[in-house]
């Protein structure tokens, strides 16, 4: 079948069986290897992508389920050379150690901040519960989300 969908703001058409996992499509057909496969069973969140803006596990998603829809991967978050505020905050607070969970965590955090601009710690924990990190202990990740939240709100006020 011919799959038409949007990947990182670009209209994309691929010949597919429809039964492939979206993570394989992204990594192997489109070369978007920022999306990582950890467990392959929806438990670790390393494969998180945004489907119409909402975080989902791309390892539990079939290509035929994304027809006509919009996918954002970590490669689509930055604009050219300038990082998304969440990416910048992760780098600044040291929320990245081995880095394997980072693309998923950044996408989940970006989706959270789009929904709730100034989340509480409790809301952060709930929103990021589907992304495992075995290095950081999460504290610096929460600090990064708080920093990104402050920066994004300041930027928004400045633009008004």
């Amino acid at each position, binding site marked *: 079948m011919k799959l038409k969908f949007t990947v990182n703001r670009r209209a994309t058409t691929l010949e597919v069986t429809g039964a492939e996992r979206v993570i394989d499509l992204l990594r192997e057909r489109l070369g978007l290897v920022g999306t990582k496969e950890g467990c392959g069973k*929806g438990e670790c*969140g390393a494969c998180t992508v945004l489907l119409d803006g909402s975080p989902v*596990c791309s390892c539990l998603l079939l290509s035929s389920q994304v027809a006509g829809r919009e996918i954002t991967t970590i490669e689509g978050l930055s604009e050219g050379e300038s990082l998304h505020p969440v990416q910048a905050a992760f780098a600044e607070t040291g929320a990245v150690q081995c880095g394997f969970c980072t693309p998923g965590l950044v996408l989940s955090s970006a989706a959270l901040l789009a929904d709730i601009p100034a989340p509480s710690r409790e809301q952060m924990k709930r929103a990021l519960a589907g992304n495992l990190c075995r290095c950081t202990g999460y504290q610096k990740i929460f600090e990064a989300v708080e920093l990104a939240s402050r920066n994004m709100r300041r930027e928004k006020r400045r633009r008004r």
Partner: protein
Amino acid sequence: MREASVIAPRSLREALRAVGRKGVVAVAGGTDLLVRLHDVAAGERPSFLVLDGVRTLHSIAPRGKGLALGPLVTFSEIERSSLLRTLAPQLVEAASVAGSVQIRNRATLGGNIANGSPAGDLLPPLYVLSARLELSYSGGRRQVMIEDFFKGPGETVLRRNELITRVVFERSQNRGFFLRLAVRRALAISKVSVAANVSLRNGRVQSVRIALGAVAPTVLRASRTEEYLLGRELDRDSIETACGLASGEAAPIDDIRSEADYRREMVGVLLGRGLLRIASAR
């Protein structure tokens, strides 16, 4: 390597024509099915009937005094529905504690039912809301009460050529809850869960339904406990007796997630927490 084929219908009629075919498995959100197929080689996989494109299966709508939900309504949609928050708070509580954000964005009501797991978090709420399932096949449809749908773990009365096409339930009485225990708060299957739907009048229990999850081969109504509570005030003594009765009604097993004795005791603890919450909210 042969990849399994996919059927992606745009209408219910097309979907019902395909569902009975040999080697075809219906996929709703896929969050359980694709985990089960994780270690199955591509050549051994079934063909997928991908239901996403059937618009009519996604709706949330009032029906009579209650609600009618399409089977493809996701946990996240349940969690965020203001209509459901008012009319079915137990279901909303259950939908918001299951899985993770990623899972809730894909997992569906119909998938949770069709899986037939006694630990499915939406099931105890559906039991206490007296849910009725509409099962359709290409020649017609039938109605089955949720309590008659499950035969055992993973076993239901759904026939090979049928799909769950609607889930209809009454609105909740004035008090209700869903509580569960699992190894951690997110992404863990329930060890035990309790849902209730209670109405109080002049401080006494006028009607009550209680359902227990993950403590028997199917979700279980705690009917002796319900009988005991009818007409009583919710005070320390009556709640304690009810918890003891409910523990006795559970028929749990030891398995990878928990032990029978612990589960039995926690049925009482969760019911106690929920009933206390109701008693102190008056």
